[in-house]
């Protein structure tokens, strides 16, 4: 009864959960974007691995990321097109198909996290509570996968209530209900003409001390991108 009352009260004050989710999802990158970012992979007892990359995205279905440094990995590229993810390894001069669960660039993000996951399409959102996370007032959304083909069965998602709709944190759960990893989104800064979170940090709940940080260096919103950029043959040709 009390939870029903809470839901009614929240619903009265807050925008619908779907709307919060839609606005939060576009807070970092818009529908179409070109960007550069630095990914830092930290593992306990090991030297941090730093990779810089250039990326392009067009809607939820087309995406391309190409490594620009370090020199020995330069040219390595990931492509998302027509429901598949492809990896190009310049040393092998080969394009191979990779799974959504495989990690992206040896870090804690999976290929699915980078390219596949569309929260608005794949999940049903409900507003669960209002909570303070890292000093920020947030809406806590419960996202339930629409079917069993979606990577994470459940996601708990916190979005700022201050009108910015900036996502603050996301906890990812497996089918069995185990928290698998969590993402924190911070370092709000003006980049590419608008203010947004510029740092995404994914931490594993299973692998102690494993953490991957993606920091956007530049973002260009709404560039004109040709669909031919997102094909396996273009991946092989390079820039």
């Amino acid at each position: 009864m009390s939870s029903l009352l809470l839901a009614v009260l929240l619903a009265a004050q807050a925008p619908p959960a779907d709307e919060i989710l839609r606005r939060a999802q576009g807070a970092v990158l818009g529908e179409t974007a070109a960007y550069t970012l630095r990914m830092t992979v930290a593992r306990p007892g090991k030297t941090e691995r730093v990779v810089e990359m250039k990326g392009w995205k067009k809607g939820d279905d087309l995406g391309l990321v190409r490594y620009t440094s370090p020199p020995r990995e330069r040219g390595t590229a990931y492509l998302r097109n027509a429901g598949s993810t492809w990896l190009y390894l310049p040393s092998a001069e080969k394009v191979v198909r990779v799974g959504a669960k495989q990690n992206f660039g040896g870090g804690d993000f999976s290929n699915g996290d980078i390219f596949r996951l569309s929260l608005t399409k794949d999940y049903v959102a409900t507003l669960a509570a209002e909570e303070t996370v890292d000093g920020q007032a947030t809406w806590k959304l419960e996202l339930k996968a629409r079917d069993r083909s979606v990577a994470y069965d459940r996601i708990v998602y916190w979005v700022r209530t201050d009108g910015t709709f900036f996502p603050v944190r996301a906890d990812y759960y497996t089918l069995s209900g185990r928290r698998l990893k969590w993402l924190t989104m911070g370092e709000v800064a003006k980049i590419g003409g608008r203010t947004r979170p510029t740092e995404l940090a994914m931490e594993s709940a299973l692998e102690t001390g494993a953490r991957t940080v993606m920091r956007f260096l530049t973002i260009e919103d709404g560039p004109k991108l040709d669909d031919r950029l997102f094909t396996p043959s273009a991946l092989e040709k390079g820039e």
Partner: protein
Amino acid sequence: MTPLFAIAFRNLLRARRRTLLSGGTMVLGSAALVLGNGLSDGIARQLTRSLVAVQTGHLQVVARAQDFQPQNSPFDAYSQERLHGAEALARRIETEGKSAGVVRAVPYLYGRGTAIAGNRTSLASVVGIVSTREPELQAAHPVEAGTFLPEGDDLAVFIAAPMARKLRLGVGDSVSFVVQTPQGAVNSLDAIVCGIFRKGAPWQENTFYVSLSAAQSLFDWPGDATNVKITLADGSASFARKLRPRVLHMAAGGPAPEAKTVLRVETFEEAGRFSFSIIQANQTALAILSSFLFAAAAVGIVNALLMSVHERTREIGTVRALGMRRKTVVRMFVLEGLALGVVSAVAGVALGGAAVLYYGWRGIPMNTITLAWIAGGDHLFPVLSAANVARAATAIAALSTLAAIYPARVASRLEPREALHHV
């Protein structure tokens, strides 16, 4: 014939050094043949036993993709496709096939994922089994610490020693598995190590055994599996082939396979092509090596007997002058070859047999990855079989006898008059 045998033996003893040299070649040849066969049979036994006990049984029911192409890898035996109603199917095959020679039919579920312990990770082959119904698998994985997978414990995991070392796991430690279910979702299982088994075939190092129900829940396939492993009373490949149509008929009565897959009943030879290609390669290599050994031994025998003919030219002339017929001369030399062959074969198989028994008891360490893959384990235990001993002995004796024919014919062609004048 008996006096001729006596003469043959006496002649062999007359030139002891030569007899020892040519006989020694054959002793070593037959010993090498017995040892080589023992190694080859040892490899075949290890690979076949491991395959049958761990992966395929004598027959297995699987669903395969219509365009399935085996990769000649040990993992080909595991199916990647969902076998609907596998538990019920296994029960039916066991009940209905009992009179036909089916001892046991058990389902298992194979899938891949990641094992995580602390900050260590590894690729994992997760196999869900019905532990109480897997006596062969249990025997193939001797427990090094802890216990085999207990019945009904969905949190227990039984792992290989190399993996335990890699993930720094001991009995009682926890390990998590993260997998992508065949439908696409990410799922996890937290388990406690109940036991550690001594490494068998190298491709089993990444295997983690959990209960079938835990694996079904992990891969989100309730009630289903990937393989049904059937153990037969007669473990021969021919019996498995004979029983296959009947098992296929039983399997066809179950739920229809998923789209783009077909239901198949495979014998262990078909399912374990990888193992059998290793066995075949070993047998081919052994055949080539044996033929070289035989050729070398044959040259030695021909040479020794030709020398004997040369040295005994005057003697042959005398016996021919006294009325011995050419045929009898041929027989005398051929018997000499046979006598040499029989004695060498007996000594050779005794030597080779002793070596096989010794290494069969002690095991030959397979210290490199390649050797371990070829032998299907980190030790190779050669096998001594009566058939191999008999085959090697017969082959050497026959070779020696046949190799004596040419020198015997040379001896028989000597004219008594010329032979008597030979210096």
